[in-house]
């Protein structure tokens, strides 16, 4: 079958974490016939984690992703807390919160100024050589540029002081933290956190001044075909406020009604996943809604995670300055849930402010400086740990044997949840902008901007829950028809 007259590859897709490729197939009229988002990488953590010492997992699994190692480090540590039935003492939990919120701040900053933001701060059609952080500094000026670098450094410095290293921290152990901080370090963090709050506010001003005034951004944020009415998943605390480190998983339907709210150990039962022969990533969806193909809407099990999803799944933000910004955001879009995929950029910056506020609050908590760092451990067993990575809900699930060695591992990673939605967003964008066979670099960059909304981490994405979970595989003939469906 040769429907296509032209095939265009975007290879590799850039300004993201990990390897990806977009394949566009154009029809006779030069419009889009079909589009595929492929992930050409796999490393196999699920396999080689077997037999490792449980307590080594925070340091092994953080090597899944060096952009968000803190997310894997603490998802893993929380899983071990559960495996050893050892909730960390207040001091250890607060230390983790300080580090974790600094990570969310730093990671969101990275995306806005270094990865996704250059598309607007420099311009979607700008020469590719300029569409990067250096181009951003050229546009916003060296003064703000240095503030960007300084505050990313602050986030990393806080991670280093609490976690022992700025990238791939080491402090998380089952039931606690390996180290505390000195009063001098605490004071340093307090100063940096206060500055981070101001910088996050300034960044929201940049967003409002540049992106909300940018014709391309406003058009894409309001374009019906680029909005995906999907389900949304995020962690919330007891009040229903966003919680990055802990809480229940709340899922809302496209109309905003609650679909489910469950504890960490029950979340895996809500998800099913499928394998496609043309990509190394597996594609999860809501089991009870079902897989209806790459499509949105209340009848499709496609759901989203990450900043926009968290803002849609929560009842409030949980910190005062960010709450005010959240209300401005909701007003702009006429109330929630907000389905506009380009709203991810805005949601990310509201979260960046909230994370800075949280770091600033936790660092003055008196329990941070006294009391035990470790809880007594129970016998090793099975546990699930859920955390909000910058890119969305991250789930680790281990079984430990009686020596505390790993006998089973499930990892459901933030970007993996979003794979179906990203594929859909890429296709809708390509449909909207590829016309008359024109695929110059500016047009292709518009196609790439559709995935950058999600800030995907594709090194992370090729890890998904193997083993116990149900799996459906469609075996297709060369004509694309399903020949056999394998289910387990």
């Amino acid at each position, binding site marked *: 079958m040769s429907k296509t007259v032209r095939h265009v590859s975007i290879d590799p897709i850039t300004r993201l974490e990990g390897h990806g490729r977009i*394949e566009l197939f154009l029809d006779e009229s030069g419009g889009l016939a079909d589009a595929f988002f492929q992930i050409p990488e796999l490393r196999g953590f699920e*396999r080689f984690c077997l*037999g490792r010492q449980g307590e*080594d997992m925070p340091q092994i699994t953080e090597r899944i992703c060096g*952009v968000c190692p803190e997310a894997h480090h603490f998802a893993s540590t929380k899983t071990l807390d559960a495996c050893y039935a050892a909730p960390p003492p207040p001091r250890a939990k607060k230390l983790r919160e300080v580090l974790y919120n600094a990570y969310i701040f730093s990671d969101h900053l990275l995306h806005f100024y270094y990865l996704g933001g250059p598309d607007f701060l420099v311009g979607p059609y700008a020469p590719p050589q300029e569409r990067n952080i250096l181009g951003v500094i050229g546009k916003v000026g060296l003064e703000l540029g240095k503030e960007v670098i300084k505050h990313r450094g602050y986030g990393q410095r806080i991670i280093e002081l609490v976690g022992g290293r700025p990238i791939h921290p080491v402090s998380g152990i*089952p039931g606690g933290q390996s180290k505390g901080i000195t009063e001098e370090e605490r004071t340093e963090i307090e100063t940096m956190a206060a500055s981070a709050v101001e910088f996050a506010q300034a960044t929201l001003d940049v967003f409002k001044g540049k992106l909300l005034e940018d014709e391309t951004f406003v058009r894409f944020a309001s374009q019906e075909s680029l909005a995906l009415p999907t389900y949304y998943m995020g962690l919330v605390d007891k009040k229903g406020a966003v919680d990055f480190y802990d809480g229940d998983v709340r899922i809302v339907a496209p109309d905003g009604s609650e679909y489910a709210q469950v504890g960490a150990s029950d979340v895996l039962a809500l998800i099913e996943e499928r394998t496609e022969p*043309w990509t190394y990533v597996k594609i999860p969806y809501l089991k009870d809604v079902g897989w209806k193909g790459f499509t949105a809407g209340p009848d499709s099990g496609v759901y989203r995670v990450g900043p926009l999803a968290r803002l849609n799944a929560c009842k409030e933000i949980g910190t005062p300055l960010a709450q005010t910004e959240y209300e401005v955001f909701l007003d702009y879009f006429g109330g929630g849930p907000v389905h506009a995929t380009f709203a991810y950029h805005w949601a990310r910056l509201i979260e960046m402010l909230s994370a800075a506020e949280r770091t600033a609050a936790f660092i003055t908590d008196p329990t941070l400086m006294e009391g035990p760092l470790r809880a007594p451990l129970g016998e090793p067993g099975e546990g699930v740990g859920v955390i909000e990575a910058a890119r969305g809900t991250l789930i680790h699930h281990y079984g430990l044997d009686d020596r505390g*060695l790993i006998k089973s591992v499930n990892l459901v990673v933030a970007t993996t949840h979003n794979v179906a939605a990203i594929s859909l967003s890429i296709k809708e964008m390509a449909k909207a902008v590829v016309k008359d066979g024109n695929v110059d670099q500016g047009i292709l960059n518009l196609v790439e901007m559709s995935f950058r909304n999600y800030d995907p981490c594709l090194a992370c994405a090729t890890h998904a829950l193997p083993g116990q979970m149900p799996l459906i595989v469609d075996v297709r003939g060369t004509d*694309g028809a399903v020949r056999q469906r394998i289910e387990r």
Partner: protein
Amino acid sequence: MGKAKIGVYWAASCGGCDCSLLEVNEQILDVAAAADILLWPCATDVKYADLESYKNGEIDIVLFNGAIRTAENREIAKLIRTKTKALVAFGSCAHTGGVIGLANLATRDEIFTTVYGEQRDGWPQVSASQNGYDLHLPEFLETLTPLAEVVEVDYVVPGCPPPREIVSQLFSALVAGELPPMGTVFASQKNLCEECPREREQEKITRILRPHQQEPDPEKCLLDQGFVCMGPATRGGCGAVCPAANMPCTGCAGPTESITDQGAAMLNTLASLVGTGEEGEDQLDAEDAILAQLDDIIGTFYRFGLATSLLRGRYHEQNRTAR
């Protein structure tokens, strides 16, 4: 002299090495002023077609992180080698295979079975047809290898990821246009213990402790206390940050120059330190009993270096005959 032309690439990696380049904070602006970036997928919009269009040797230096896991990693490594004058194995994965080298404990089929299930028909395929369109994936290679097994490497920057001070030294040399002689390893030439703040007394080890089992004394050598710290067999240069955070060194910087096999060297060191004070045959039994407390020898001693160790990985008879 014109501006230097530099590149950064990731193969099978986590992105931590790319982020480590930003850890130098404002120094990155000096690099940007002194050099044009011709390749950096994480941060710039340069595509493979652009890379192919460069003349041979057009790039001055490429910092290559990540191991060779897929056929694409291998092809791009070879392409980059032709385009650059100097190639740097940057970080543990490119240098020694890294944590992901532990995948060499399993065959490709075992990895796929774990990740995608028993049904081979449902596994990702090198060539597949979807909705009538032909789609291709790079082959997932049977064995993971470090960069130097695929192409010649000129410099090594060890670490997972390389520490800020080391990256800063490399950048300073780059900006000054004064790179050291090829073959240089950007790290300390001594082992980690030389820079560790803890007090080592080479006490006899009477039992093996895992990090979650006991809170270590903050001043004393972790090895003296029975924690398996890879310091003696590992290159320094990071400032012993993990032991300073009450956690043992896991060996990410790889072995010192004089060591062939990091894991074997550390096992050897450990074997010489265990003892209970017993003598004669009882002594051997007592030492064996202590060493039997090691629960995961591969994951502890070969965490970052399995792919370049003497062990290499599991021996696969069926693969050997298939070739």
